[in-house]
Structure formats: structure tokens, C-alpha cells
């Protein structure tokens, strides 16, 4: 694997946060604008459903914004963007969902026997098709970005609720 890919501290955490914040806020604005155009439903049940839908939309927007802020340099961001694009294509084409072939590298030299590695692969996007060493790399970067994402979202929430 690329040794140059060994984990470096976030080269510029501020810029990632900035980029993420920008994209995320834009996405939220888009969502809001789209939602405002539709009349709010009076039915409480559908309101709850709408709320859940909105929640999911915002969460998806958060992950998408972070992935696009990170760029295609990392495998996990590529996987996230790919998933989003596939989903968009599916909604547009209304075709059956094509399962993304996940290749699980069965490494006979696995040192972990408790399935932790598989768990980690499920958690980190795109983690199925890498070897363990690379998975650890991606996990490190993913953790950094998740942390930044959480911080930005908290701030946005903080200031939007006041």
C-alpha cells in the first residue's frame, strides 16, 4: 500500500471544516427552499413522517457535504460519493437498485478472530474492499472528518437555535 498514505494529521482541519460548513449550509438551504415551496401538511402523522424524512435528508446532506469537502483522495469519501450518485441515478431512472458488489478480502492471515475487522469494514464507507492495513488508514481519516462534521453541525445547531 502506499506508504505515503499513512495517516497524517489533518493537513488543514480548518479548511475542511470551512468547506464542509459551506456545503452543508448550502445543502440545508436548498432543502429549506424546496420544503418551503410545498405547503406544510396539517396531518400530524404525515408531519412526523416529513420530519423523519427531513432528518434523513439532512443527515445525507451532512455526509455528502463532508465527502465532497474531503474530495476523492480518500477511499471512504469516494465510496460515499459513489453511493450518493447511485442513489440519485436510481431515483431519476427509477430502476432497480443495483447492489454494489462488495468484495470482502478474505485474508487468511487475519489476526482478529472476533469479527471486529468486519464490523469496522461495515462502519467505514467503502471499507469492504480494502485490506486491513488500508482500512485502518481510512478509519483514521474518517474519524477525523466525522469529528469535524459533528463539531460543525453542533455549531450550526447552536447558532440556528438562538
Amino acid at each position, binding site marked *: 500500500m*502506499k506508504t505515503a498514505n499513512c495517516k497524517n494529521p489533518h493537513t488543514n482541519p480548518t479548511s475542511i471544516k470551512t468547506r464542509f460548513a*459551506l456545503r452543508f*449550509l448550502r445543502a440545508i438551504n436548498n432543502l429549506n427552499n424546496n420544503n418551503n415551496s410545498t405547503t406544510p401538511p396539517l396531518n400530524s402523522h404525515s408531519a412526523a413522517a416529513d420530519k423523519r424524512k427531513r*432528518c434523513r435528508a439532512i*443527515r445525507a446532506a451532512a455526509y455528502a457535504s463532508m465527502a465532497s469537502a474531503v474530495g476523492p483522495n480518500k477511499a471512504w469519501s469516494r465510496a460515499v460519493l459513489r453511493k450518493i450518485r447511485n442513489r440519485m441515478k436510481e431515483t431519476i431512472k427509477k430502476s432497480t437498485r443495483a447492489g454494489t458488489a462488495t468484495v470482502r478480502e478474505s485474508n487468511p492471515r487475519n489476526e482478529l478472530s472476533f469479527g471486529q475487522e468486519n464490523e469496522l469494514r461495515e462502519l467505514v464507507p467503502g471499507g469492504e474492499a480494502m485490506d486491513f492495513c488500508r482500512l485502518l488508514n481510512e478509519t483514521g481519516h474518517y474519524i*477525523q472528518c466525522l469529528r469535524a462534521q459533528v463539531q460543525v453541525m453542533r455549531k450550526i445547531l447552536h447558532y440556528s437555535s438562538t
Partner: protein
Amino acid sequence: MGSEEMGDRVFQHRNSSNILNCPSSVMATTSISDNVAGMSICSESMFKPPNGIDPFYSSGWDPVISGDQSGNFGNSSMVLQNEFTNPNYPVLLENQTMGSSSHLVHFPSDSGLVGMVPKIPSFGSGSFSDIVSSFGHSNFPQNNGAGVQNAVKNVEDPQDHRQDSENGVLGASPNGKRKRKNVEVEKQKDQTGDTVELQKEYDEKKNVGSNSRGRQAVKEAKDNSSGAEASKENYIHVRAKRGQATNSHSLAERVRRERISERMRLLQELVPGCNKITGKAVMLDEIINYVQSLQQQVEFLSMKLATVNPELNVDIERLLSKDILHSRGSNATALGIGPGLNSSHPFQGLPQGTLNAFPGTAPPFHSLPQNLWNNELQNILQNGFDSSPSVGSLGPNGLSKMEL
């Protein structure tokens, strides 16, 4: 020996020629000259091709470059600028132990080598490409009978030729541009096959000592065994320490384990509260828990944002863009936010009410909160999130109490 000189140049070529090199035994940071020196040792056994002779055996035995071209490569040193990504070249693991090195280098067949030629940008000399182009020729040129014989000998009887020159050649440090990521060590196979394997022995290299640089190369090789990973080299030069198994598989396994443990250490720093954990399984559990908790936080926050946000309008973006483009946002934009944020008051009854930390929450927004909001947003975007807001009683971690 005059031939030795030639051999030096030859080996220099070999060092710089990624084509054949098995990046495997690259000494990560040794200079090419060191490898060249090392290689000079086996000059006798090395085939010294005459000008323009294709030194490659049809069996794929690598190596050599015509001495003619030596001048071109003499100083190029192992600067392997090649985008040499031939997967046929396994990494060669050096074995330092008592002479029983059984590290083999696989060379692809000539056809493969021919294919590799164009990928070597560092070899600008046309003559070299000419030489290389004659790779695939099965007929070994007979001009240099002696050299050929030597080479043939090497092919047929690799066990006798545990020359460091091979190491130097194959181990030519590919300066970071090779993309080989796998460390493969294979045992010796049939030489008549497509791949010819060579054995290397660093001990011999040391012993020969005809060239002090060779010794130096060996020493450097020792130092680089574990540091190789940190460098930009993609090849890892590993030595089995004293008393350790020198099995090729175990060496590769060791390299892999070292890599993994290094990554785990880095992860340990990332995950809070894992400083005292020793053990991969526990560490992995912590990592998994941490990632899950982060993802849950994202979910929670997005749910909150979903309930809070409908009234946020494009003013935010305007503010953002202005803040980002100009170091200090203007108050005008902040004012624009006021009316937008005012409408958020009805939502204060929601659980987020506890988050309201601004002093002026009840009354309509005055300029003060707006400026604070403006500044805080700037903080968000520009300064990173570690600085807690001056006004907010709830710091950035305020939510954590609520969430978990």
C-alpha cells in the same frame, strides 16, 4: 579490474533501471551509489554486455544494460523516476542472517519487460531504450561470450551466485514512485520458468567488501529495515533480526504486522481515552465504538437540525460567503440575519431551548447578538472549533451532555 569498472557502470544501470529491478530489496534510503558499489562486487559474475547488446535472457533473467550506456546512467543513481508499477516484481526481502538467504526475486518474462520499458521516464537516453527494446529477444547476443556465460551460469545456478549485485540491482531504491504495495517473498522456483529467481546474500556483500561503498550500503540497509515505511519508498527493505525466522512468509507477515501496529498506534491517538490500552482487540473495540458514537451524534444533530432549521433562509449563505470572502463580515449582513433568526423564537420551546446561550434570547435580536453570531460564525469557519464562544454558556461540548 577493468571489467569491474564496466561492472560498476553496468550495475549503475541496473540500479537505475526499474525495469528489472525488483524493487524488493530496495534499501529504502541508501543512495544508488551504494547499491552500485554493492553491485560492483559481483561484477565478475555479472554479465557485462557489450554495447547495445541485449543482456536479457529469454528466460527473463534480468539485467543488464550495456556498458555503453553506462555513462548515461552513471550518475543517475537510483533515482528511479519510473512509474514502475509492474506487479510482477515482488518486493524482495533481504535476509541478513547467516548466509542462508533465500530471497528470491522474480523477474517477469521478457515480454513483460519490454512492456515496462516505456514506463521509465528517467531513462531519457535513447540508447538505453534501444538496449531495452531488445529485451524480448530470445537470442542472446554472442558478442560477449564471457559475459553471457556468466549470465548463463547465474541463471542456471543461482545458488552459486549470491551476489549482492543482484541485490543492488534489484534493490535499487525506487525513489518513491513505484506503486508496489505488496510485499511478496517467494521461494526459489524453477529457473527455466518464465521467472528467474536470484538469491541474494547480504553477508556475502559484506564479506566481499571490495568496495567500501558496498559495506556502507549494507549498513544503511540495516538501518532502514523499519524506517522504510516512513519514507516515501513503497518498497520495504526488511531484515530478519538475529534469532528470528527467516522464512519468507514470516518476513512478509512481520512487515504486515508492523504496519498494522503502526496504524493502530496512530488510531490510538485519535480515539480519546485509549492511551492505556494495549492490545489490538481492545483497541479495535474502542475504535468501533468511537466511530459508532460519532455516527450517532451525526444522526442526533441532523434530527435536531431538521426540527430547527426550516426558517433558516438564504441569508445565512450570504453571511457565510461574506464572512469567508472578507475577513471580517460586515454588520449589514448580520442585520439581515436578524429577522430570519427572530422567527426561530417560537421554537425555543423545543428541547433546543436549553441550548440558547445568548444573553439576548428573549428580546428581539439586537446588534450585539448579531455581532456575536457573526463572530461566532467566523469562528466556525475560520478558526476551527476548539475555541468556545465567548458568550455561550454552553461550549461546543454543550450538546454532549444532552446527547449521550
